[in-house]
């Protein structure tokens, strides 16, 4: 038998080898088709925006030009968004990791209470927090500052980050951490040098989620900042208008939607490399 030659095909081609790929295709289509519509709408001319042909003809970058029109300050807003979301993500990961470590590995009093408190803060309808928060920020002079956007974003992202990281750290083989401690690590070092790299899928997932959440945060950013220089992309997007009061600049908004989504996609592409399997393989029996 010439198994060598036929190996690969035989091994992988069962009768329904294509079924998983069909599934993948279906899911990708499901996820992308509304986005595609967004893209298509953003590429239509303002005047045939109501068209419903699947491919815009003629293609037009009007909407993008409008979005990037100098007076919109959209580029600057993108920068602000990056700053706010980036700082939020880094800080959330740092302090969330510390907390998650304590929750996953230490046995201390009130642990469940702490977990409960953390998640409790995710139970209050966010819009009800807005006015008191504004009062608070006015009181401490935070209006028109980056931290006024960063700190609330952090507090919205933290509960999930902590819970998720806790679940991950708890799944890491404890022997590895023990081995590191024997090797002379403090618990903190053991955690940082051994557990954290192995929990990369969880950490990067948390990073992606936090970043996206912070990137898309709207109502706080809108309320605590009124200087154009500090506004984030979603806020600027909400201010896009057409030529009159009632004229919803749908194309421009969709263009903006595409533009603010693209960096996230790139980010996901970058981060997802770290979401890999088998990091702990070969570690313990």
């Amino acid at each position, binding site marked *: 038998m010439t198994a060598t030659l036929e190996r690969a095909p035989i091994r992988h081609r069962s009768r329904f080898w294509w079924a998983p790929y069909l599934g993948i295709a279906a899911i990708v289509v499901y996820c992308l088709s509304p986005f595609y519509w967004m893209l298509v709408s953003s590429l239509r001319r303002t005047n045939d925006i*109501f068209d419903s042909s699947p491919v815009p003809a003629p293609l037009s970058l009007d909407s993008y030009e409008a979005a990037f029109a100098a007076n919109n300050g959209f580029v600057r807003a993108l920068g602000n968004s990056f700053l706010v979301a980036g700082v939020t993500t880094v800080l959330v990961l740092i302090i969330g990791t510390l907390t998650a470590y304590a929750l996953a590995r230490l046995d201390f009093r009130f642990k469940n209470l702490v977990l409960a408190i953390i998640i409790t803060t995710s139970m209050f309808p966010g819009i009800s927090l807005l006015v008191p928060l504004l009062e608070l920020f006015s009181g401490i002079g935070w209006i*028109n500052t980056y931290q006024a956007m960063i700190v609330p974003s952090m507090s919205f992202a933290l509960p999930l980050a902590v819970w998720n990281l806790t679940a991950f750290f708890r799944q890491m083989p404890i022997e590895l951490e023990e081995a590191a401690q024997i090797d002379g690590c403090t618990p903190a070092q053991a955690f940082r040098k051994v557990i954290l790299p192995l929990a990369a899928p969880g950490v990067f997932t948390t990073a992606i989620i936090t970043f996206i959440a912070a990137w898309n945060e709207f109502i706080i950013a809108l309320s605590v900042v009124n200087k154009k220089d500090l506004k984030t992309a979603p806020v600027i997007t909400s201010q*896009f208008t057409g030529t009159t009061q009632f004229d919803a600049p749908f194309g421009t908004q969709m263009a903006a939607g595409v533009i603010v989504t693209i960096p996230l996609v790139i980010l996901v592409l970058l981060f997802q490399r770290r979401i890999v399997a088998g990091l702990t393989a070969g570690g313990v029996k």
Partner: protein
Amino acid sequence: GSSDSGGGGGASTAPTALEGVGPITLVTGKDTSGNLQNQVDGWNTEHPDQKVTVIELPEDADAQRQQMVQNAQTKSDAYTVLNLDVVWTAEFAANQWVAQLPETEFPLDKLLPATVETGKYFKKLYAVPTTSDGGLLYYRKDLLDAAGAKPPTTWAEMNAACDKVIAANPGLSCYAGQFEKYEGLTVNFSEAVNSAGGDVVGDDGKPNVNTEKAKAGLDFLVDGVKSGKIAAKARTFKEEEGRRAFQAGELIFHRQWPYQYAKANAADGSSTVAGKFAVAPLPGLDGPGSSTLGGHNYAISSFAKNKKTALDFIKYMVDEKQQRANLEKTSLAPTWASLYDEPALVEKFPYLTELKKSIEKAKKRPAVVKYQEVSSAIQEAAYSAMSGQATSADALAALQTKLESLTKG
């Protein structure tokens, strides 16, 4: 700078003197034309020490209002001049979020009286109108001409015209307005009631919708839906959806704001009805109906600094020069009465004549503190009647009760 001491009106009701000179902010929904910045720049070069900074809020009116309310609640001095929708005046005035303004400081007599009314609360001026708006009936002149019909002045005429046109052009629908459940529905309902000779809230501030006339008004809408004269999908229309339908040639009559005029006439192919329509005053039950007033007023936040500058800036903005420039640039309806009669402008904006009529005859929406709740109640009543969930009589009776409790005082 100006050396006028801001003269407050009545002693007890004008608690704050409008004082202080220096940089201020103008808070507004995003400028649609780019002209605002020009106007502000103009002011800024004249008054370098009293710079005006524009703070743009979201395009969505509810979001604008939310920001302004929040700002008032936190008593922040970040906002100085507020660009308020006409219907917000009462709420902002009653809450003392905006300062009372000295009437004598403004050329109110040069403005359209109806618009000035929208800036008043309990007979005192809190806001100065800078732009106005009124509803118009857009109609397909070509089709009506072909069917030999005249622009209608009553609903009956309109229906009759429709029947004729549709007989020749099956598939068209007769009429649409803004019937989605939002502020536009309040406007359309109010217009219907007013055009039937009724009142939503009387001049005495008492609600008055449980009347035959109001019912006749509501029935115009309800029957329209039932008979199909108003297409089912029109119940999802806001301004833009309606405009699209009209431009696509699906509608014979359309109640719409003036902004549609230019768009529907665009010759770039986006509109199939360019040059085929005209505008008329809204029709009514027994004769021409009346529109509801739209538009924006400038007011001064009570918590702001440099109110004197703010006052001067508003004066600058309502001035004829600025209004003319604004009209030319943005085609927004001015409040400066004489502009409507300038031939040059009328030629450029052919609807001005009809619009002026419309605004002059227009009624303002209820000037009540709890306007938002009133409006919600109206929308609820109109929406449920139009969707057939309630009879118009029941809906109006319920609305009356609701409004009474809301305006109790």
